Structure formats: structure tokens, C-alpha cells
């Protein structure tokens, strides 16, 4: 993709690379200076040592034969090739002997080590240098007139007040320093280049993946709700980010789906009773005005409305529970007590219908949750069980409620001995909203009881399972058993 420079600089990868490069370069420059100054100091030390040795030798010569021997030795050594400089001058600074033709003025005036490198001209080199510099290297540092070479030296005063200078040319250490500096500078350049290359490949690839993510999210925002962000499978930060965002999208899609379902259900299932309501009112109005008829019509209207309100509330409750509502108002719920409550609540209804309700609860079963919701879910299930046990195949209709621990769960089972739901698909469908299986259509109820129970179980991070009984149907509410809270 083509990106302008400001656009590139806007990317995090580029900015980070630039920052790293800058910091790294600063470190490298500091390193170069440190290294060169260190090596220069080391070489200067070495040079001084050499000079000291030389002076020692000359001192011995002086002790042996006085000034004449010294002068001879100096002359001798001056003729040898090398970096050493020798000079003997009279008290006025007039050069008497040695291999130095001229030097910076003032060098001979202070005794001891020269404080800084000075320039000088060696005997016989002046002409040659001028010639070479003039032809081959115009404008370089070496070509600047008299100051052909740099050196450091030890200036001594001989007992007869003559001045002796023993020094060493700095050409070699300076060349060495230049080599180091060049090498380090080159390394720095290569590093910069490397940084750029790294940015180009790493940064660009990161950029590309982020672009992929934003491209995908644009598509999803544009209406492709089933779309997901790309995941490469490497498992890096980008993948984790995409996976999390995908999980979020899936959750949103599920909520959206739930919302759609609710509105579909409301449209579909509330329309019928509403129409009935309207028709009844219309029929009452169109008939002969009779108080008794009106009263009856109004009463049935109220009854129908109450039923509508109940259904409506149940739908809302289910969608809220399914939306993953997380409550801080959960408490310790004693399931055994809830079972006792609900069974006690339904016992008279069951007895009136000729259904025996048995309970098998032993021990304490505490879960964390909402007592009201669990009670409501259980009463819906028991309500169903009583209704469906009525068409028991053989024997008396019985509903049994049991509570036990199984496979790390607390399972509350409500079993009836009715016809059950033999078909697997039907069993699965039975907990869907408003689904009323064929044979239950004649029974009163909204078709929301089991869906509500399922939503309640989901809310409690548990499950609602419909299992074939022998005979009949077993509805199992499984709560996760928690030891942590």
C-alpha cells in the first residue's frame, strides 16, 4: 500500500522505531567518543613511556662522556629512521643538532612535557612534503604550511643551560584514532540502515495487520455482522487482540440475535391474544347494549390482559437473564429449602389433580445465586411435571424431586412418569421460547416456563437438561459446585 511520510509517521511502529533508533544512535555516538578518547590516552601514555626510555638512554650517555658523547649519540639516533625526535638547542633556542628542522615557537621555552601536541618539521622532509601535498592532496590538514607533523616531547635543560628536546611523532596514534573513528562511524551508519530495514519489515508487517483489523471492523460496521477479524494462528498479541474482539463480536451477535428473537416472539405471539382482545371488545360493542354482556366482555378483557402482562414480563425476564446479567445480589441459597418450599407450594395442586409428589433430598446443598429465580425456575418445572404426569402410562401419576451431587455438580432432578418427550429434537426444542410441543398445545401455559428455567440456569452458570425418563421426562437443573466462595 502506498503511504505518505506523515501517514507512516502516524503509525505506532514507525514512531517506536524512530525513537529506538535515536536512542541507539546517541548511545553509539557516546561510545565512539569514549573509545577514541580512551585509545588516544592510552597511546599518549605509550608515547611518553617511549620518550622516557629514550631520555634515560641519553642521560646514561651524558653521564658516560658529558656533552660531546650526548651530542654524538643524538646525531647518531637522529639519522635512524623512526618516529623519535631529537633536538639540542643553545640557550637562545637556536637549533644545534637533531632531526628537527623547525618547530612551533615557544615549545622550547617551558621545561617538562609539552602540554599539547605541537607541530614541527623534520629535516629534509619540508621540500618533499610541500611537493607531495601540492600535487596530490591539496586542502587536507597535512598541507597547511609549516605544521606538517604533530608531536609531543619532553623538554629538558642540560647542566650547561642548553636545551634538549626528546619527542615522538604522533602520526601513528593519530592514524589509529582516525581508523577507530572511521570504523565506529561506519558501524553507526550500518546500524541506522539496519534500523530502517527492521522498521520496514517488522513495522510494516505490524502496520499491515492492524490495517487488516481495521479493514475487517469497517466491513463489520458496514453491516457484515457475521464477519470476524483475521487471526493468523501465531498466537501473538495481534492474534490475542483479534480473538478477544471476535469473542466480543460473537457476544454482541448473540445478544442481537436474542433481541431479534424477542421482538419476533412479541410480534408473533402477543399479536394473537391482542387481536383476540380487540375482537372481543368489538363484538361486545356491536351487540345489543346489555350490561351483563358488557360486564362479561370487560372481565374477560381484563383476564386476557393479565395473561398478556404475565407473558410480557416473562419474556423480558428471560431476555434479561440471557443477556448475561451479572448480579451482586447473589446469596447463599439452600437448595434443599427451595425444594421443600416449592414442593410444599405445589403439593395441594398436585393432590387435587391426583398426583403424588415425592422428594429425595439428603444433606445440605448450598449454591451461590438468586433464591427467587431458582424458586421460580423450579416451580415452573414442577408445574410442568404435574401437568404431564397426568397421562401416566401405567400406575398412579408420580412426580419425584431429588437433589444430589454428581460429577462435581449439584443436580436437582424433577422426574415425572408421564408420556415424556421421546424425540431427541423435540426435547431440545422444548426449552426454546414459545415452543409448545404438539400435545401440550391444549394445556394452559405460555410456553415460556422451560425457557425461563433454562435462562435461570444459564444465569447461575449451570445447565438445564431434559433427559428421557423411564417412563416420562427428567428435567435436570445442574448447578456448578463451588468451593471458592
Amino acid at each position, binding site marked *: 500500500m502506498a503511504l505518505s511520510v506523515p501517514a507512516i509517521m502516524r503509525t505506532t511502529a514507525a514512531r517506536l522505531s524512530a525513537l529506538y533508533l535515536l536512542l541507539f544512535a546517541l548511545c553509539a555516538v557516546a561510545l565512539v567518543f569514549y573509545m577514541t578518547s580512551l585509545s588516544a590516552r592510552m597511546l599518549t601514555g605509550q608515547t611518553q613511556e617511549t620518550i622516557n626510555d629514550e631520555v634515560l638512554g641519553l642521560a646514561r650517555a651524558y653521564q658516560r662522556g658529558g656533552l660531546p658523547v650526548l651530542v654524538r649519540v643524538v646525531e647518531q639516533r637522529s639519522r635512524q629512521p623512526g618516529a623519535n625526535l631529537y633536538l639540542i638547542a643553545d640557550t637562545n633556542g637556536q637549533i644545534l643538532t637533531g632531526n628537527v628542522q623547525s618547530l612551533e615557537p615557544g615549545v622550547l621555552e617551558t621545561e617538562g612535557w609539552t602540554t599539547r601536541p605541537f607541530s614541527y618539521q623534520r629535516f629534509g622532509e619540508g621540500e618533499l612534503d610541500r611537493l607531495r601535498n601540492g600535487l596530490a592532496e591539496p586542502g587536507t590538514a597535512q598541507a597547511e604550511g609549516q605544521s606538517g607533523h604533530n608531536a609531543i616531547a619532553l623538554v629538558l635543560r642540560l647542566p650547561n643551560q642548553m636545551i634538549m628536546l626528546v619527542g615522538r611523532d604522533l602520526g601513528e596514534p593519530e592514524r589509529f584514532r582516525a581508523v577507530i573513528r572511521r570504523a565506529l562511524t561506519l558501524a553507526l551508519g550500518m546500524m541506522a540502515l539496519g534500523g530502517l530495514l527492521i522498521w520496514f519489515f517488522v513495522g510494516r508487517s505490524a502496520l499491515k495487520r492492524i490495517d487488516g483489523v481495521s479493514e475487517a471492523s469497517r466491513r463489520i460496521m458496514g453491516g457484515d455482522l457475521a464477519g470476524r477479524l483475521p487471526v493468523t494462528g501465531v498466537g501473538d498479541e495481534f492474534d490475542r487482540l483479534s480473538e478477544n474482539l471476535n469473542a466480543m463480536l460473537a457476544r454482541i451477535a448473540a445478544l442481537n440475535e436474542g433481541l431479534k428473537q424477542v421482538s419476533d416472539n412479541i410480534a408473533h405471539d402477543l399479536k394473537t391474544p391482542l387481536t383476540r382482545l380487540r375482537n372481543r371488545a368489538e363484538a361486545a360493542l356491536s351487540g345489543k347494549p346489555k350490561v351483563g354482556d358488557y360486564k362479561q366482555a370487560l*372481565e374477560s378483557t*381484563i*383476564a386476557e*390482559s*393479565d395473561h398478556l*402482562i*404475565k407473558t*410480557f*414480563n416473562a419474556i*423480558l*425476564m428471560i431476555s*434479561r*437473564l440471557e443477556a448475561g*446479567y451479572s*448480579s*451482586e*445480589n447473589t446469596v447463599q441459597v439452600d437448595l434443599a429449602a427451595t425444594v421443600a*418450599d416449592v414442593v*410444599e*407450594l*405445589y403439593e*395441594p*395442586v398436585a393432590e*387435587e389433580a391426583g398426583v403424588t409428589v415425592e422428594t429425595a433430598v439428603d444433606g445440605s446443598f448450598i449454591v451461590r445465586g*438468586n433464591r*427467587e*429465580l431458582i*424458586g*421460580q425456575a423450579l*416451580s*415452573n418445572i414442577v*408445574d410442568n411435571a404435574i401437568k404431564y404426569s397426568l397421562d401416566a402410562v401405567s400406575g398412579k401419576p408420580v412426580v419425584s424431586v431429588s437433589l444430589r451431587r454428581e460429577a462435581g455438580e449439584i443436580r436437582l432432578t424433577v422426574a415425572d412418569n408421564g408420556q415424556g418427550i421421546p424425540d431427541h429434537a423435540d426435547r431440545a426444542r422444548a426449552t426454546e421460547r414459545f415452543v409448545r410441543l404438539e400435545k401440550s398445545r391444549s394445556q*394452559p*401455559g405460555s410456553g415460556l*416456563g422451560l425457557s425461563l428455567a433454562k435462562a435461570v440456569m444459564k*444465569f447461575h452458570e449451570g445447565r438445564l437438561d431434559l433427559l428421557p425418563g423411564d417412563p416420562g421426562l427428567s428435567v435436570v437443573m445442574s448447578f456448578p459446585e463451588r468451593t471458592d466462595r
Partner: protein
Amino acid sequence: MRASRSTEIGYNGAMKILIMEDDREAADYLQKAFTEAGHTTHVAGDGETGFALADSGDYDVMVVDRMMPRRDGLSVIAALRSRGNTTPVLILSALGEVDDRVTGLRAGGDDYLTKPYAFSELLARVEVLNRRAGARESETVYRVGDLELDRLSHTVKRLGQEITLQPREFRLLEYLMRHAGQVVTRTMLLENVWDYHFDPQTNVIDVHVSRLRGKIEKGFDKPILHTVRGAGYMLKGG
């Protein structure tokens, strides 16, 4: 069975009710319905007005909508309670989250009803909340007509004849007697006798009530536990 008529609802005496409801139409309907039931009403269209009215007036019951402009219902209730106002409050809410009820009662409400609701339910609850009618808490013996319930010895007598009740039946009768002469709905019974707040799918409460009725009316001439159609039950002697 004799069906009591709606004229009997609210016979317990007229109440002065403050309605805080921002929906004009709903407020008008409530005002009309409460007036028909024999009560006096004032309406406040927002939280600030409601607070000012409640703070200055002497109301028997307040019906407070949770979501109102300028000041929401819960904060009005909390403010009134902190000023020492103990007028019973019924909260109306269109929310209906799982624990809205808990939040509402914690803020100082005495009862909670989720919209949409049946007016008969609201009326019954408001009449039960009326503090002038609720002086029975402290009594140890309830008497309604010839029926007598002793809360300490857990005995029930009618015309001096002892009637044996199951513990739950006793609590059911106790609640009905405490609110004798008032309509008690099925959900109110489930809430107060069983401590569950939901609409039972079938007529479970009815069967419990008819069992109780069997025990306290069988062998006696006069019916005492009446069914109020479209609303609930009422225990009434004489």
C-alpha cells in the same frame, strides 16, 4: 360462593395518596381509578414537585414512579426518609431487572410493582400499605367476626371451636387476618406467606386458599374468606 363486588374494595377508609408519575396519561388514569375506589389523590409530574409535596403534605401512601424528570424516584424516597418521613411508599418501575426490586426496597420503598401491572394489584397493595390500617402488627390475637387467631399459642378458633392448621395454612390465615377487610392478591400472598416474588403459573395459591377455606368455613354457616373476582381474596366477618 358469594363474589364480592368492587364497591367493597377500599371500604377500609379513604386514603390520601400522592402519585409521582411523569406520564400524564398514566397519572390521570391512576387518579381516576383511585378516586373511584374512594381515595383522594394528588399528582406530581416530576421528582422535585413530588418531593416538595411529600415533604409538606400528610399522605397515607405514596405511589412513586422510578424514572421521573428532574429527580428520580429512588433519590426522592431516600431524601424523604433521611428527613424522617415514614409515609409508606410503593415504587412503580418499568425497569424490571432481576434485582431492581432489592434496590428499590433498599432505597426506602415499602413495596415494588413492575409495569405493566393490573390496577387491582396496585390498589390492593396500596391499601395494605396504608399505615392507618396497619396497626395490627403488635396485636397478639387477631379477631375477624367469630374467627380468632392467637399468634403466640398458634391456635385458631371459630366460635370457640379449635381448628387445626398446618404451619403454612396458619401463616396464610395470619396474613389474611392482619389485612382483614382488604383485598389481598395472589402475588401478595406468595410474597408474604412464601417469600417468593413471581407469578405462579397455575392456580397454586387458589388451591392453598380453598384448603384453608375448607378448614375455617366447613361446618359454619357464614362464609368468611371471600374471593374478589379479578383481584384476589378478602377475609371479612359479619
